[in-house]
């Protein structure tokens, strides 16, 4: 038995059980290092904001293929208008990116009919709107903000026009005197892809996106050939553009997890050494 024990020992005197313990420790440390990334899997209402080097204002820019998309469930808005609950679009995908100067937001949704032309009284445009709080630190009422807590609305219509609007509740949308939002659209494979581009910096009544905090965002979609317009629209709940570090963001998080990993390592080494000494004493 003693011979076998000696045969199982390596040159430094480590036994097989020592090796197992070390392996467990390595796994534990590895887990400690991995856990942060597991624990930071996105909340459902978070829209990650990627950094891009190029201009992503085109809805078909290659960069959009690498930017994660968040699927937003859409439902009718309780506007009280005729047929308000009768809307057709069930979901939209939202992507966001920034470069040094601009923010890019792309909304995509399924719509087989591209309603670009309104030639008569019964035709309506497809449209999409992105809504962000004017004051990015306070969440406004979802239905187009409130009189004391307005929202910026970036609106694109199927005729190719876009508007930058300010709203303080339903029925109050007002165009900014000067427009700073550009929108471009593509209709491919029965889907619309619309990108909104705006400078990061805000000004009076214009949402500041050059911030290190999350900014709420919601979208609305109108299907023109389904007679959707005004408050008859499919809308999302509030999500947020992950522009900030968040309450458990990277610096804070890294320090905590590093400390936890070191603690695990320390306890393991002490334990191994204790076991070894106990065995040594026994021999």
């Amino acid at each position, binding site marked *: 038995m003693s011979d076998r024990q000696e045969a199982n020992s390596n040159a430094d005197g480590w036994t097989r059980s020592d090796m197992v313990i070390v392996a467990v420790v390595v796994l534990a440390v590895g887990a400690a290092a991995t856990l942060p990334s597991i624990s930071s899997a996105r909340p459902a209402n978070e829209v990650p904001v990627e950094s891009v080097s190029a201009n992503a204002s085109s809805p078909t820019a290659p960069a959009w293929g690498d930017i994660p998309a968040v699927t937003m469930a859409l439902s009718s808005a309780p*506007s009280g*208008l*005729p047929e308000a609950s009768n809307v057709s679009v069930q979901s939209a995908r939202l992507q966001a990116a920034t470069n040094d100067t601009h923010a890019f937001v792309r909304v995509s949704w399924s719509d087989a009919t591209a309603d670009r032309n*309104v*030639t*008569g*009284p*019964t*035709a309506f445009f497809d449209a999409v709107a992105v809504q962000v709080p004017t004051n990015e630190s306070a969440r406004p009422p979802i239905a187009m903000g409130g009189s004391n807590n307005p929202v910026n609305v970036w609106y694109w219509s199927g005729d190719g026009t876009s508007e930058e609007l300010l709203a303080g509740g*339903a*029925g*109050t*949308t007002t165009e900014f005197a000067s427009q700073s939002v550009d929108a471009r659209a593509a209709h491919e494979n029965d889907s619309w892809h619309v990108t909104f581009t705006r400078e990061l910096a805000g000004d009076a009544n214009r949402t500041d996106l050059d911030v290190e905090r999350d900014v709420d965002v919601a979208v609305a979609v109108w299907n023109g050939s389904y007679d959707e*317009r*005004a*408050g008859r629209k499919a809308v999302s709940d509030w999500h947020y553009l992950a522009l900030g570090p968040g309450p458990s963001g990277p610096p804070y998080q890294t320090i905590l997890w590093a400390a936890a990993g070191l603690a695990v390592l320390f306890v393991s080494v002490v334990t191994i050494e204790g076991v070894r000494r106990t065995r040594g004493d026994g021999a």
Partner: protein
Amino acid sequence: MSTDDVQDQGEDTHIDIADGVDHQVAMVMDLNKCIGCQTCTIACKTLWTEGGGRDYMYWNNVETKPGKGYPRDWEESAGGWESEDHSDRKPGDIHPREEYGGDWEFNHSEIMYDGSDEPLRPQTDPEWGPNWDEDEGAGEYPNSYYFYLPRICNHCTHPSCVEACPRKALYKREEDGIVLVDQERCRGYRYCVEGCPYDKVYYNAMTKKSEKCIFCYPRIEGEGPDDEVHATACAEECPPQLRLVGYLDDEDGPIYKLVEEYEVALPLHPEFETTPNVYYIPPYAPPQHSEDGESIQSIERIPREYLEELFGDRVHDALDTIERHRDRVRRGGESELMEILQDKNPAQQYRLEVFE
């Protein structure tokens, strides 16, 4: 009586005008005088709706009744209010463009300049248009019948178009109750178009906004080139001068007398519950003829039931009142009502400065 006296009386009036409105413009059209010449239609079109996406709009139109009207079957497209308490609106429909009628291209140039001997005709194959069923009417010879119905926006006391707009882009003017579309606020949603039971709000696909009759407000304000107050173009240009223009709450004016005192001027389709401020003297027609050409005094040519459909059950009393006064005058008596209906004095016909 001074102008001030009139104004004081106006403020004490019992007339139901809209909340927040000082005075209410109104119009009375005597359908017995309309000859269907469309001069009013052209006067309006020339002034307000030539081009710019307005080609298909006739803020003033004259349609033959019975008939489908403009836009086609407008009376069946709903809108208005569910009841007289004005708490719930009745959903309406928007008419497709073809039900208003197309803007047809004609071969003017070929005929006028290129020497073509083709007949002048549309270069499309039209299937409907304003006045498509002109003069058809109803009934069988020798008892067929029809009459003309000029229509503008009714500038209602309870306008369902105003209530329908989620942006409050439509409003009643405080000073005179004219219903207008604020072109700055309008975003072309067209809830007003479907909300008006008279289909008198139109969508302009070029401006992407809705438009409607403005009761010629620059004319009645004296904002024209001559700085003079004028009645609406449709009224002033009318060859038989069938329209009275003024204020409903001008108790010394003929409109008040016809509407409120004699009750012979009636709103169109009162069951829509919008309380129009355009009123009609219902049409009179000779009685039916027998096969040998004799008048049958007991059978009216235009069925009362049809007039009741258009003007409600008050049409019976209105026609009876007119008949009574006509008979009185025939017998050598006097009738203020008959004098008003035959008055050709423009100062009475167009009373637009009584409240200034």
